[in-house]
């Protein structure tokens, strides 16, 4: 089971869709951070709850679209072709599907972490994480 999960995760991580999503999310995070957040929202600090919430709110729709695209890999042509082989094995199909879902969730979480990590890098470089000792 562990091997199947690792294989599925590896397959998703080196998928060009994931790489492209990662790149798009990075660019978009940079854009939002420098266009809307860095000056602070409504006069608050760029690292205030309001500013950070605005940042997350701006990124979220893109992440949801990304999740939808990741889910499409379940129904891709290759998956359908491979399904014939999996159907021939004695493996529990529901369990296998759960493993695949879990791998997608994990990859999605990694993509979600990217804008958060970028925000922390910016906050650290400019303000040295002031919110940690606010």
């Amino acid at each position, binding site marked *: 089971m562990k091997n199947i999960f690792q294989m599925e995760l590896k397959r998703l991580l080196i998928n060009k*869709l994931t790489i492209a999503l990662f790149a798009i999310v990075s660019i978009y995070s940079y854009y939002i951070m420098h266009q809307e957040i860095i000056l602070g929202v409504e006069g*608050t600090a760029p690292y205030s709850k309001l500013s950070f919430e605005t940042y997350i709110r701006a990124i979220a729709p893109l992440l949801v679209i990304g999740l939808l695209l990741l889910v499409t890999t379940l129904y891709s042509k290759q998956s359908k072709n491979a399904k014939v082989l999996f159907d021939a094995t004695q493996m529990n199909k529901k369990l296998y599907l759960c493993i695949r879902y879990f791998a997608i969730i994990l990859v999605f979480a990694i993509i979600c972490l990217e804008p958060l990590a970028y925000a922390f890098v910016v906050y650290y470089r400019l303000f040295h994480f002031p919110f940690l000792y606010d």
Partner: protein
Amino acid sequence: MKFMKLFQVECKRLLQAPTTWFFFLLASFCPLLGYKAISYIAVATVTDQYLANPFWIGGLACSFLLSILALYTYHRVPKNQMEHILYSVVSPVKLHVIQTFSLFLLGWIWTILIALIYLPYTKTMTANSFSLKEYGTFFFIFYGMTIALMLMMTAFLYNLTNHVDASAIGVALLVLLGLSSWKQLSYLSYLSFVDCCFSSDFGNDSIYRMLSYSRFLWLCIFCGMWLMSLLSIRTREKKWLGSILCNLCKGYLLVPGLLLLGAGGLLFLKQPYIELDGIENYAELETYDESGNYVESQTSDASKNYVESETNDTSKNNVESQTNDESDSNTYDESDTVAGSDTDHVSEDVDTSGGMMAYTYSDKETSSSQTLTHTDIDLHFDCHKGTMTGNATFSLENLSETEQECTLSTALGCEIQSITINDIPTSFIKGNKPDLYSGNNFTFILPATKNLTVRIAYKQTPKMAADGLVNPFCEITPEYIFPTTLVPGFTDVNTDSATYSCNATLPKEMELIVEGIATKQKQANQKGLASWQLHGEGASPFFIAGNYVKLPIQNVDFPVVFYYGKNHQEEFEKLNIEQLLQDTIHYCCDHYGVLPFTEEYPLNIVMTSAHMMGGAAGSNLSYMGESFFSSINLNDQQRGANAREVIAHEIIHQWWGMQAFIMDDEDCCWTPEAFTCYATSRLMEDLYGKSYAEKYYVEKWQKDYQNLQNHFYMQHPQYQSLLSTFDYSQLENLIDTTNVYSMGPLKLKLAEQLVGGEEQMDAVLQNLFEKCQSMELPYITEQDFIDACNLSETQLQLEGENAL
């Protein structure tokens, strides 16, 4: 099978597919988002609210949905593993072309259906402003052309990648890129929009011209890319590169593709709507012969050397006064006897926050050896092409009777075609732009003769400055004419006693509003045109023309005429706008004094197109963007100081800003806005009571001022240096706006308390206004105000002011 037969089969299949109509259903709902949920543009007019915003969003969403459908269609054959069977009947390239053309036709069918669905609602809501021609134009540009662009983009990406997911990501990226900032060339983005509002009264031809140009340009580029990408359609079981090599012999794809790409590139480089020459870039010196033909080109270095060598023995003061110090390489004078004069020139104080823009005329003493006595001008407007051609004949006196160098300053987009002096063609040099908002300067030599007749033929196509805003407020359209400058002006000629005669040919429906002391006479002409004969004082006229209703304001202390768009007539009669103007004028006359307007020189209050943001005032013209008069603004009680009060604010600028100018060399925030905002609040106090003025004016100033003080970067100035230039300029703009519109009036309010109340303050202001009118004070500085109030500087300091 023949192409047309296959095309019909594919179209029929597409039209019968449930997926197609599911996507259409989604696309037809998208404009609903633009009515309320998403507001991409500043909604100020009914055209913005019910046409521009919903259908721009709708067009974009519809194109995106069609792109998804296109990817689904292209991928259908390989997904169902039908390629071997199908490609034995029709070649893959032919099939792709047929699919693309069918999708294109489908997109246009969607466009027509959506236009028909929303037509009754749009017509009802926009009422008098509705025009079927404009509705069609809007759909053509924002639906039809966007659909074509996105389809070409999608087809190109699919051909290149042969994968749906990669193509979808590519399309999404290109959409994001199209919607991002393109800085100076933002109108040339393939999904571009404009920064200004859409006009409901004066047409939007100038916007449509620009956007059609940009869409057409990108259509050329994307069509070229698509044709080239057809070479990469997988053939003979080969991969991408192999397929390209196999298809390279298809010249009928390669050659038109390259030609279209070249045409697109050329259109991009030669774009006609933005003047990209900035003051930082020394443009080439272009020399023209007597007939106006281009002769030679000198490099920027050459131009610099030329200036340095020539200005050794010249009056450098003149250079500085004319060209904002470092600007131009050509505006100098060879004669030691010539000093600077810009009597007829306009210094512009532009407020970026949507308030007033005052044109002020400097009255510097001039000792120029050249005097302009009279100008004869013949102007012809081609409103459909958006151009103006002019012939100006200047009668000059060269008192020095030596050869003199003369410089003509022009507006953006103005090209001088020929110059003749005493009927002899003369050569001239095209120089650099003095600043971002001016056209090139043209220099020529005046002969050593006393009486000179200088004839200049020129053509003007209004252009926008390269300041990153797509805001074509200077325009020539069939409904409206707002030129920057009508005639090129001499920068170093005495024009104090000059007069002008002007013959302007305009569409006959237009009303012409001329600035200054002038007489005008209208004569009907042939072909729907009318000739206007103008005579007045000054080197040249300035006028605005449009489909206006003229409303003289009765029962006021001096003559006032209000010009507004015909579509507003019914609405204004209901709103009783005449009463508002009467109240404002009465208040200012009673509290500050009567303005020196006469029957020959009346105050003209003019509604300008919504393309012009904010308002402005100059001489006897006080003009405001149409958005101030829109029912959306006029009825918006939630905004407190609403547009009705902004109208009053702009009228009050006739007193504070025009008759009495407020300026301080040491404090750039000491502007007429402080006095005008204060006077507006007092007027509203008179009209609606003290609590209203407190709530919507004083409390708002205090809140804005407080917000700025509490702003993160004000509290932690050490972080300001970490901001990028763009972010820092935004912060500066916020500080300036608050200082001008909130801190300034708050200071006056504080002074009111310190001098003993409103009556005492009125006396102080009346005294200052009278001093300005009698020229005792050229302008009011902060110190003048402090002295008039008999206060000290420290008394007038607000809490925390030093920190800003």
